[in-house]
């Protein structure tokens, strides 16, 4: 998988590059809009991470040129301004997703992966170790034992299972499971993770829910 990162801020570009590489992607980087557009038109990238405020050519213009040049590559737009307007303009210009700065790298990674997964069939049964999550009947069991989950707990488990093996941040959880994101909700998520652990992990020796301090949570058969 090959990803292009267009970002003029060296400090941000360096860790995005490094992080994506560590996650197993081949990464090209450009420091301005002209460079980014040239690379984007020449190489067949699987995804592009594009900052909006760029020297020489701004992000929106790069995006329009890419689209009018026939490139359907999924694009994740980064912006230092989290204004709704920016988001709308980015999506109008053909962006596939939008991430406001400052962001957690785990979130950027998850969003890039989500863009790459687009179009692939979603399984209706998710399995993590001996945990089975049936999305159709909305039932979960571990080692053949039926888990008695509330609606919210199931929704949280579903989200974790969809991103099994990946770290998900509290922001991602609250936006996707609660459909809204407020600072005070991170505590709520911690509480629900605790509820979930009590039902999924406590009765069993092997723990599936892992905490990545300062980042978020991960559902995985391997720690």
């Amino acid at each position, binding site marked *: 998988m090959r990803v292009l990162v267009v970002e003029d*801020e060296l*400090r*941000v570009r*360096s*860790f*995005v590059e*490094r*992080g994506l590489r*560590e996650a197993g992607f081949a990464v090209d980087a450009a420091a301005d809009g002209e460079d980014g557009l040239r690379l984007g038109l020449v190489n067949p990238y699987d995804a592009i991470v594009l900052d909006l405020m760029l020297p020489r050519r701004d992000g929106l213009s790069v995006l329009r040129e890419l689209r009018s040049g026939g490139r359907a590559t999924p694009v994740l737009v980064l912006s*230092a*301004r*989290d*204004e*709704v*307007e920016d988001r709308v303009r980015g999506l109008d210009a053909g962006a596939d997703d939008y991430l406001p*700065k*400052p*962001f*957690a*790298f*785990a979130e950027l990674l998850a969003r890039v992966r989500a863009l790459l997964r687009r179009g692939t069939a979603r399984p209706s049964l998710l399995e993590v170790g001996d945990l089975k999550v049936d999305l159709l009947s909305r039932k979960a069991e571990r080692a053949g034992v039926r888990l008695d989950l509330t609606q919210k707990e199931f929704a949280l488990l579903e989200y974790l299972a969809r991103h099994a093996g990946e*770290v998900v941040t509290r922001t991602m959880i609250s936006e996707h499971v*609660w459909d*809204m994101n*407020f*600072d*005070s*909700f991170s*505590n*709520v998520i911690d*509480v*629900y993770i605790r*509820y979930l652990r009590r039902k999924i992990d406590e009765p069993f020796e092997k723990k599936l829910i*892992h*905490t*990545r*301090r*300062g*980042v978020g949570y991960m559902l995985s058969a391997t720690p």
Partner: protein
Amino acid sequence: MNRSIRLRIALAVFTVVVSLVALQIVYVLQRFQHTFIEEVDDRLEEDLGDLRIVLGTDQLSQWIAQTAGEHRREDEFFIEIRDRENRLVARSTNVPDSGFPGTRGIDRSQKPLYWTFPHPRSRNGAREVRALETWVGDWHVCIGISLKEVQRWYWGLRKNLVTSLLAIAVLGGLSAYWVAARSLRPVAQIAAQARSLGGSNEGTLLPRTGSGDEIDRLAAVLNDLLSRIRAEVLRVRRLTADAAHALRTPLTAIRGHLELDAAASESGASDHVAVAIEQVDDLVRFVNRLLLLEKLESGLGESLARERLDLLTHAQALVDHLRVIAEERGVSLECHGESVAIDADATQIRQAIVNLLDNALRHTESGGKVSVEVGERGGWAELAVVDGGRGLPGDQLERVFERFYSTRAGTGAGTGLGLPIARAIARSYGGDVTATSPGGARFVLRLPLAG
């Protein structure tokens, strides 16, 4: 003193008009009286001339009877004639037996004497008689004419003048009131406009009449002041916003690198890296809140799309979400009330409610209770959050809405921006958040009803 300038001007004009016109009336009446008395004196002279002819003849008593008769209808005639030894020669019947009232008994070398005395049959002495005392040859003559007619004229005139005085003064006062009200109308408009002005109403200035009068010039000066204050406020705001904004890129970079370091190590983040990440997250939250507040207070949030919302539904949803937190803390959290529709952006309204709930939960100790009441009250959509804390002293009821103000009474540090943000959101919709302290603290979010 009365607080209305209009009334004061009207009263002043009324007083001045009354004094001036009253002076004028006194002058006119005196001139009038003087003129009439002179006329009467002329008639007395004429009568005296006639008397000269008949005096000493046998026609005297006939003349007296005739003259008194002539005068009887309007101006009663008085006469008394005495000889040199002061013996009574003739006297009209209306002269009292005690003698002609008010005679001085002048001697022959003295000039004729004029005076006025009360009519002998006048009860209160209001009717008067004009009299002349003189010597004609060897006779000492006193004649008088009743001023009945003159006095009637005089009183009539005085009544008319006083009536018109009152009319003029009342009209003057009313016109002054009207003129003052008209000239002061721009002041009322300026006051009304000024009351609705906030820091965010950019470009809105005080109304100018364009007449160039004192009030117009005052409005111009105030507008100038307003523009300068706004420019200054804007500059400070921009400074805060720019500073917060400038922090975003370095924070993103710091956070990213820390996170990658944490992920690289097998056991996840070491304690100090995790603490550093959490600290950066706190800073990020803080910067985001500050930027949100700036955006709201500078009026940029007003461009958001509005939709029809039920305040109760949203309050109920948030209470359900946050109940787990309350339960963790041993606080009971409940929501009741009735549906009430508003037009607003759901995320913003939820943010405001969450901030109020967050504040209430942090200030309520275990075993306490936080309750939310939603409903329509006094033409507003209202959401009240009552906590089980120690309440707020009077001087803090407004201060809690200041940025970074903390009572430090609650558990868990807030950013000191939650309540200001809640208020700024409410105000951006024309509502408000206010605090009272009927025991615990009670915060009321008030929003305009949908419509």
